């Protein structure tokens, strides 16, 4: 009979332990899109992308231009190489923003004269970021790299706002090559 009491006790103990267990669980996930960045702490992955490499025989230059747009935000990055050769690839390396041959714009959509247009939200000055091209597949025409920068703007009341674009990446992002 003692065994029966023990069995009963164990069952009852298990029931009470189980009935007390109530947890809250939070799961998170981030986009796996090939072009994304973290804008002011929030993940942003554009749904409209333009990615080109253009060679100009006249100026012997090659320009890589990557533009992404989503949710009233737009990033445009441009790297211009001088003395380039007419191939569909691009030289790997870290390109610091210099506002001349390496230009980055962070734009937001605003109502201008009744029309919604993208205008620069501040200035990405020389030395305020970089683009790193880590891999180029000139056969598949895919480019991979990372970027980060900040855009500094000043309001009419002299209040300064800094938009931080960090952890940017483009991974095996298809591009079109044009030679003219």
């Amino acid at each position: 009979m003692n065994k029966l009491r023990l069995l009963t006790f164990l069952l009852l103990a298990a029931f009470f332990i189980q009935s007390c267990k109530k947890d809250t669980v939070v799961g998170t996930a981030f986009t796996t899109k090939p072009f994304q960045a973290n804008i002011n702490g929030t993940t942003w992955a554009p749904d409209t992308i333009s990615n080109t490499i253009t060679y100009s025989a006249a100026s012997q230059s090659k320009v890589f231009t990557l533009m992404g747009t989503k949710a009233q935000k737009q990033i445009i990055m441009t790297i211009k190489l001088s003395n380039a050769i007419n191939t569909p690839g691009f030289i790997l390396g870290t390109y610091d923003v210099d506002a001349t041959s390496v230009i980055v714009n962070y734009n937001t959509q605003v109502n201008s004269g009744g029309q919604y247009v993208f205008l620069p939200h501040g200035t990405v000055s020389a030395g305020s970021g970089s683009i790193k091209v880590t891999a180029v597949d000139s056969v598949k025409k895919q480019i991979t790299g990372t970027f980060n920068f900040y855009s500094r703007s000043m309001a009419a009341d002299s209040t300064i706002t800094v938009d931080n674009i960090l952890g940017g990446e483009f991974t095996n992002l298809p591009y079109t090559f044009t030679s003219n």
Partner: protein
Amino acid sequence: MTVGARAQVKSYFGFFGGVSNALSDFKSTDYNNNKAGFGKRGLTYGLDGAYYFYKNLGIGASITYQDNGELNQTDANNLAAGYTNSFGADNSAVTGVNRYQSVNILLGPQYSFSYGKFILDVRAAAGIVKVYSSPETTIYVGGVTNQTTDFYQKSASATVLGYSGTAALRYKLSDNVFLTLRGAYLYSSGPSVTNQGRTTDIGRIVTKLPITTINTTLGLTFGL
């Protein structure tokens, strides 16, 4: 020793406890399966009895509480990843609360086979399943212009029909006391689920939660 119905089997009552295992869609953790319940293995316990009105033929009834768990971290992460992909979101967060808790009351014909100190009971039963709660999720999707606020898959609470098949092996400990190993299969079309706050039909939408379980229990029964 013989097998069969030579004498009237004693009516009995008893209690049991053990494990409830989720099966089929109820067990599934597939984001793309809208019937996937993310049910888990949990505790079950209850009361059981049978009244024999003709030799080995009787009518049995049970009342069973069962717990089939809650969303775990992996489930929540998988759901968040699913919503992120479905919505083309920049990021998603899924918060899960509550757990599957239900009580079923089932009644049906039972036939028993006696063999020495053993009695094998088989029963088909039907009745009601009272679902007290199911996991509730709050979903946030970031960077989605047509779904800017949280939306919810509410905890379900309903009384629905259920069907069961049970096999129990009783071992005679004394004249009127049996140690009983019991397996009970339960199916119910399950409760309807309310979704709130959606401004679009994109992604996983759960409207019904079918419940399928098999409960394996051990208990004591007492002859009357």
